[in-house]
């Protein structure tokens, strides 16, 4: 019966060809390491966010008078299992960004941004940026104290352009315009909430969906990279490749189960970090909470911004880091790929990895002068990583030529 239905469908749509082409004839390097799984995990988390988000949107009310109650009373207390989907959505946001960061570090480590995968990296960067915007807009919706003041601070950040050493007038005007444009006025009120809501539930997810599709298409088109850092020839080296299904699907499926187990452990037993107690107090525009810091996924940028004495240069610095990330395929023009084959790059990668982690930790600590100095030092190291790439590439071109064009 099922077979008949499938045959009927196949006659009309050729799904069997599509399946064979996409699942079995699609070959993947056998030597993929564990970190290559993060892409699939990110995709799973994206699906989780969409499903849980659709359920939350049915009960959430994007107006100031009702936002807090609908999130914390209607959803948490009245709707059967409403709490579960709120927990999933809140934990999912954190897991999504964590997985995306791991995915990005993996990409950097194996140089997956280099020819022929530059577009994969660039689209991936845009996904990351859109994801940060989605996280920021979603953060306001529960209308708690942290939501409100976190957004107040975020919308004030463009105003730091007013600190510019030159062209003060123009920069001030730009900063203020962006800030007002984000809020829809001078205060954070219904207009801003509606705007953030619309972006968070409709526009940004649609953009993400489109970008993720393009990202996946590009991965298929360029072929997946591999830890050894050279392009496997599909014809002469077919023994180094394995069909996507069942080999990779089963392996990644098994890891996905472990991932989901970890995810739901947090959802059911350990939500206090993802839904902090402070945010269960309704937004009060006349009272700032005693301790306010961004979510962990922004702490690195926050520390860069905070430790540089001039607000203007702090603003420039953290935006520059984002832009330098986007420019990785240009900065790193070496013919060699994968940190496994590039000792200098490997060292600088470790410097970058640890500096990012330390900056994130510093972001949680009080802004003492010592911490600010440490923050500046590790900011410098992050920039050193990016600036070292052209130098390393130049050296590696020399070695590459000396060996007669072999890597």
């Amino acid at each position, binding site marked *: 019966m099922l077979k008949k239905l499938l045959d009927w469908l196949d006659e009309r749509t050729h799904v069997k060809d599509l399946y064979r082409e996409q699942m079995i004839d699609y070959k993947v390097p056998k030597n993929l390491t564990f970190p290559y799984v993060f892409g699939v995990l990110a995709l799973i988390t994206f699906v989780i966010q969409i499903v849980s988000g659709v*359920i939350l949107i*049915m009960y959430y009310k994007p107006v100031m008078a009702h936002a807090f109650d609908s999130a914390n009373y209607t959803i948490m207390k*009245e709707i*059967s*299992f409403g709490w579960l989907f709120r927990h999933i959505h809140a934990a999912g946001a954190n897991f999504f960004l964590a997985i995306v960061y791991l995915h990005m570090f993996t990409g950097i480590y194996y140089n997956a941004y280099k020819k022929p995968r530059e577009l994969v990296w660039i689209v991936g960067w845009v996904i990351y940026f859109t994801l940060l915007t989605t996280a920021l807009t979603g953060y306001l919706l529960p209308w708690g104290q942290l939501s409100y003041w976190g957004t107040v601070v975020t919308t004030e950040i463009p105003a730091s352009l007013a600190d510019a050493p030159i062209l003060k007038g123009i920069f001030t005007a730009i900063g203020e315009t962006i800030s007002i444009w984000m809020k829809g006025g001078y205060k954070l009120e219904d207009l801003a909430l509606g705007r953030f809501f619309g972006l968070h539930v409709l526009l940004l997810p649609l953009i993400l969906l489109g970008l993720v599709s393009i990202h996946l298409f590009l991965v298929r088109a360029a072929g997946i990279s591999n830890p050894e850092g050279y392009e496997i020839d599909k014809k002469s080296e077919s023994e180094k490749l394995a069909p996507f299904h069942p080999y990779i699907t089963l392996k990644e499926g098994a890891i996905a189960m472990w991932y989901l187990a970890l995810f739901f452990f947090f959802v059911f037993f350990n939500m206090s970090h993802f839904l902090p107690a402070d945010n269960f107090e309704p937004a009060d525009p006349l009272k700032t909470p005693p301790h306010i810091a961004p979510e962990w996924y922004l702490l690195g940028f926050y520390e860069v911004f905070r430790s540089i004495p001039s607000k203007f240069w702090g603003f420039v610095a953290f935006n520059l880091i984002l832009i330098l990330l986007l420019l990785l395929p240009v900065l790193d023009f070496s013919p060699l790929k994968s940190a496994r084959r590039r000792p200098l790059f490997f060292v600088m990668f470790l410097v970058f990895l640890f500096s990012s982690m330390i900056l994130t930790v510093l972001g949680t600590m009080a802004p003492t002068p010592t911490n600010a100095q440490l923050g500046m030092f590790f900011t410098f190291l992050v920039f050193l990583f990016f600036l070292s790439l052209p130098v390393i590439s130049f050296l590696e071109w020399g070695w590459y030529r000396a060996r007669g064009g072999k890597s």
Partner: protein
Amino acid sequence: MEASRRDFIHVALGGMGAVGALGVLYPILKTLAPSAASVTEAKVEIAIDSVPELGMRVTSWKGKPLFILKLPSDITQKYTYKVKKESKNSAGKLNQEILRDKPVFALIGVCTHLGCIPLWKPKGSSDVKAPYLHCPCHGGLYTPWGDNIGGPPPRPLFVPPQKIEGNKLVVGEPGFVKELV
């Protein structure tokens, strides 16, 4: 055919996937169930003393008007009602047969004709010389227990599940009435 190790992985992973999918589906479907607010609305308690003799209190149960009536014990001797032939509730009886010996009871105050809310006429009128319920929309007439005696209604008023607990009438939990629709 012997099962290979790959078959085992297929079944194990597929099974876990299926369990996971069911585990996700269950709470998703449950979110569509009535909310906690309507669940608390599904149980109403009325103090028996708060209802005057031959009087009616109106409250609501599951969003519908609920009539609470207290009738004098000699009402069946004083008045006789000519109940229509087709007047039978879902137990195949008259409401009166089930409710008449209770000190108070509750009816769903929705006319079974087209959904209007009947009025309580404790003193009767020139036409019906006994206490009765009168639907103003199309002139449906009911006895105080909700059995239809005239007009277009096809059947008696609905009776919600109810029980008497101490000096309270509890509507929403089955007792002397499970539910008559």
